């Protein structure tokens, strides 16, 4: 991929919390809801909203289950999410390179 085209910036990822979620999952592949809440210093409601947006875009998969008797929400990055994140970073890098 060469050059920079601001039109390619992915709106589903664009935003600090959503970018944080995608970056963290690109490394960890899967994370529990509370883990994400802790590392991103987000509130429960805010994180839920942004996770839903990423889920709607097909970038993450949210699996609800139980650990013992406690409910457990686990978030996985999807192949489409990985590709979208890589493209997003590429576009951002292009922006920095072109204008610096």
């Amino acid at each position, binding site marked *: 991929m060469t050059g920079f085209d601001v039109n390619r910036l992915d709106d589903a990822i664009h935003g600090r919390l959503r970018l944080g979620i995608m*970056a963290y999952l690109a490394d960890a*592949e899967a994370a529990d809801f509370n*883990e994400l809440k802790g590392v991103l210093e987000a509130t429960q409601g805010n994180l839920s909203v942004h996770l839903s947006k990423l889920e709607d875009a097909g970038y993450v998969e949210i699996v609800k289950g139980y650990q013992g008797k406690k409910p457990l929400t686990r978030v996985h990055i999807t192949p489409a999410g990985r590709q*979208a994140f890589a493209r997003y970073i590429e576009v951002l890098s292009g922006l920095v*390179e072109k204008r610096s």
Partner: protein
Amino acid sequence: MGRIFFKSSIAEAADLVFARSFAGEGPRAQASAGLVFFWAGLLYGLQTLVYAAIEAGWLTLTPPYGLWLAIGPTLPFLGVIAYVAWRERKGKGGVATRALTASYTSAGLLNLVIAVTFGWLAISRQSTTIWLLYPIVICAMQGAVWYAAALIRRKLWLGLVSAGWFVTTLALTLLMTQVAAYLFCLGIALLALMAAPGYVMQRLAARERAPERPTSENAVEAHTDTDPQAAREALAFVKALVDRGEQVQLSGGLLLLSGGLLYGLQCLLHGLDMSGSVRLGALGHLINGVLPTILFLIILSVVLWRDRHKTHANAGSRAINAAFGGVGLANLFMNLVFGYAAFTQKLWLIWMLYPISLCALMGAGWYVAAVAKRRLWAALVCAGWFATAVLLAWRVETPEYLLILSGALVLLMAVPGYLLMRFDAGQRA
């Protein structure tokens, strides 16, 4: 982007390089590990099956072909290793990906240390049994590696591969007296549990890689709020989020401290008794043999109960604790393997190989910690354990053996355990 980052142009360039590499590092690292596992499993699996056929009398090899069979798989495999190392030379992963890659690499390091120590002992003692124990240790380590991978990536199939390796470990131990069956089992395991998963990893990585010319349904017309400064901050934010080695925490400091002190003291007393400096007597031997394990099991139970609801704060911590969990599991299997082999073969030397394997396993665990945390002291502990494994093999069946082991347990287990406890207490405060 909320937080403002003030950075030099060098740091900005570093963020840029990191972010570009990081975005595709997960699948790339998986593809590389898959490539290595595929070729290692295929080449050495086929080699082992040929040896099994020779041992069973189905095949005969004349001298030049025997040499080719011995070194044949290693030559192309070294080529694969060199290619992967070259391809990955600039790869920059987040802390979890780094820990997972280090976990795979640690299996190779352990293989090298065990091959050197067991190979030397097998040749110097003219013992086929010692040589047959070498693949068993490697199988247990493979079980540990895939166990760590399963916990890091949270994939069931990786856990099944791990279980397969541990079953193979036990099967090979039981088949040690039937060499053809032993080799056949090992060959099948290499193909089914190394080559096949390696192929799957490559396929999965290919599916996750970004296409050359992407299109996105979520692309928007324009982002008026995306100026170069905001983009710089976003890249710095990504790096800060996933590259935090200093926030990676290894739990179990108390277990390392108590285990190191208890077993270090036990080995010291045994060593002094063997050298004639002290006389323990029958009762003293019994107490020294049993008491440290009883005390350690009590501490272990208390810690497990205390931490039963504890979850790791981040993926990096989960990764290195998974690696050490794998080491602990492999240690349990090693205990069974060497205990059974020493008992059935009536050979004390075999039991002396267990601490050598344990030291190499600990070295592998600390290698993962050193790579994830990027701390020199963790790298020194790793090097210390591998050096101890070699030293122990050199001084096996001498009183120094136990004194070396005692020193290693205190310096490389108890002291790091204490440091981890201090670090943990500092973080809480």
